[in-house]
């Protein structure tokens, strides 16, 4: 393991150019070109790093200023500001390196330096489980802003559920209750939480969101609270430095706000079904537990497909050794059980694999779930209906903007979707060099704008 981590040290990689900074083998025919571009990538990466560092530094300062003028009601912000300042030794070099990469059972890819992670005061539970860790405090402000959407979604979902049309398992648990969560009823707790009053949240890290968790989130308020929203959007469009990528993605998806203790472990408990005891619940929770109880009766037919695809996910990548594949299997299995209407669809293995390269296993689960449940709802289900809709919309857009191209394709008898469908389905992975940076974030802008239109915008050449 340690040896592998060394192999993945980027400085070595840069010397050899056999693998890119993400540990992917550079194809022999591209080696020459990769050598030519390696320095450009490096320069761009440094520029990106500087921009982000500058942004985060300024954010820390303004947070401090804001705190001084705030009422006690928002002392939670003070808490936050403190942690931000404590993070002053922010260093991109420490970036992706979490403890999890050195000793966790999952991937050991992407270890930059085997540095010791600083003790972060707000992270009491970091070391409790190797497969879960929190992101650096300096990103908490972004995380909080993005979590507002998560909260809004919960509220929306709660309303829908009241109307009886809720999508059952979109697991948002903003208000993690303080009540003793025993192991067996964590499922139940989970569902209770969705209906519970979020203001009972006592988790100090999340308390900034408390005033905002009313029936609707006042966006004007959130804009005044996050005046840097626009700048952040520009930064994202310019790409995210590799060292920050995993954690920023988590912040954007609102991983911490989504996380339910033990949910991931319960999904994976060897013979347990995640709906244990669900049968005994009231009719209301039966509605909520719909898919979960379905899962009890339906054989896990996606199992074979996952097995087939494990060795076919980033074949040859050093992080996908036996441990890596096991982690990927757990991640995909957990998601399939979490959302049986989707189960497992090819292409999910790619971004699940990528998430595992960038973050600890359980973080990867919540990130995967956030991305798939919120932004690709209906995309990977049996019917793949949303995927088809997107392709028709995209074709119309291409027709409008690039009539010549479409005429030619028509002439060849080729539909636009034949070419672009796979791009969208794999969220543009495997399409562009990993280090070009921007493409990985193409999806991230819709976390910001809450619309898929920019997904199209970005990819209209």
């Amino acid at each position, binding site marked *: 393991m340690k040896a592998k981590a060394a192999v993945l040290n980027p400085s070595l990689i840069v010397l050899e150019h056999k693998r890119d900074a993400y540990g992917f083998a550079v194809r022999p025919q591209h080696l020459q070109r990769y050598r030519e571009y390696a320095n450009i990538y490096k320069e761009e990466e440094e520029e990106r790093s500087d921009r982000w560092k500058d942004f985060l530094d300024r954010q820390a300062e303004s947070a401090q200023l804001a705190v001084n003028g705030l009422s006690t009601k928002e002392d939670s912000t003070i808490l936050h500001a403190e942690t931000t300042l404590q993070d002053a030794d922010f260093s991109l070099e420490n970036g992706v390196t979490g403890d999890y990469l050195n000793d966790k059972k999952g991937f050991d890819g992407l270890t930059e330096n085997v540095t010791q992670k600083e003790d972060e005061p707000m992270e009491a539970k970091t070391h409790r489980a190797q497969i879960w860790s929190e992101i650096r405090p300096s990103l908490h402000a972004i995380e909080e802003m993005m979590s507002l959407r998560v909260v809004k979604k919960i509220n929306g979902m709660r309303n829908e559920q009241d109307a009886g049309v809720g999508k059952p398992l979109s697991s948002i648990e903003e208000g993690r209750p303080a009540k003793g969560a025993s192991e067996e009823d964590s499922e139940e707790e989970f569902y209770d939480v969705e209906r519970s009053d979020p203001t009972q949240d006592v988790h100090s890290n999340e308390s900034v969101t408390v005033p905002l968790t009313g029936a609707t989130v006042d966006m004007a308020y959130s804009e005044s609270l996050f005046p840097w929203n626009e700048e952040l959007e520009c930064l994202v469009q310019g790409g995210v430095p590799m060292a920050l990528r995993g954690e920023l993605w988590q912040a954007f998806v609102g991983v911490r706000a989504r996380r339910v203790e033990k949910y991931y472990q319960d999904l994976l408990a060897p013979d347990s079904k995640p709906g244990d005891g669900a049968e005994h619940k009231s009719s209301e929770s039966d509605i909520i537990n719909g898919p979960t109880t379905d899962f009890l009766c339906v054989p896990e037919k996606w199992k074979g497909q996952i097995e087939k*695809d494990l060795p*076919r*996910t980033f*074949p*040859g990548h050093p992080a996908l050794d036996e441990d890596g594949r096991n982690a990927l299997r757990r991640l995909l299995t957990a998601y399939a059980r979490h959302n049986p209407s989707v189960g497992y669809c090819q292409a999910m293995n790619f971004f699940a694999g990528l998430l595992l390269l960038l973050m600890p296993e359980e973080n990867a689960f919540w990130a995967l779930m956030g991305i798939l449940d919120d932004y690709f709802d209906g995309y*990977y289900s049996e019917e793949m209906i949303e995927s*088809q809709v997107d392709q*028709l919309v995209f074709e119309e857009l291409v027709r409008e903007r690039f009539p010549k191209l479409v005429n030619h394709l028509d002439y060849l008898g080729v539909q636009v979707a034949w070419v672009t*469908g796979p791009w969208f389905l*794999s969220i543009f992975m495997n399409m562009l060099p990993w280090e070009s940076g921007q493409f990985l974030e193409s999806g991230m802008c819709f976390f910001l704008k809450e619309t898929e239109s920019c997904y199209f915008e970005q990819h209209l050449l």
Partner: protein
Amino acid sequence: MDSPSSQESVGFDYLFKLLLIGDSGVGKSSLLLSFTSDSFQDLSPTIGVDFKVKYADIGGKKLKLAIWDTAGQERFRTLTSSYYRGAQGIIMVYDVTRRETFTNLSDIWAKEIDLYSTNQDCIKMLVGNKVDKESERVVMKKEGINFAREYGCLFIECSAKTRLNVQQCFEELVLKILDTPSLLAEGSKVLKKNIFKQKPPQPDTSSSSCC
């Protein structure tokens, strides 16, 4: 680096569209790669569809083969059905070491062809892949032959890994297409369009192909 093939691309007598179908993991993409670039490597699963172009001299004709490679996972079938349109040859691939990939051909894939293929005369070919794993074989050659007889298609066993019979597989299919006048006419129609029409036809409505 691609210059050898691009030189060949200047002229060809016929353009044929071939389609690869079959269960996930039977080796469709590997078979295609083995044919188009004489190599074998670990591949990622195909998402949706992929295609490769190969120029070949078969039966004394210069051919341009556009070979479409489809995803095997069940749910992708809703997307892949449209790829059948206009194919002159369809290759059904199974894995000789996994019986269900063979039985699914009659249960599923042959029906897909009936449903979606637009061409009555389109040539079908049954291919049993992975014969390099002879010790793990569970589908006998005889069974393949019987299937081919029943469905009226060509049959060959091959290995994308060792490249055994890979060239033959595509050659036999193409020879049969060349033997079929209606398909031949289609293959050259496109060509004539290419040569004689300066501009591609302007579509009158936004999309006539969406139904």
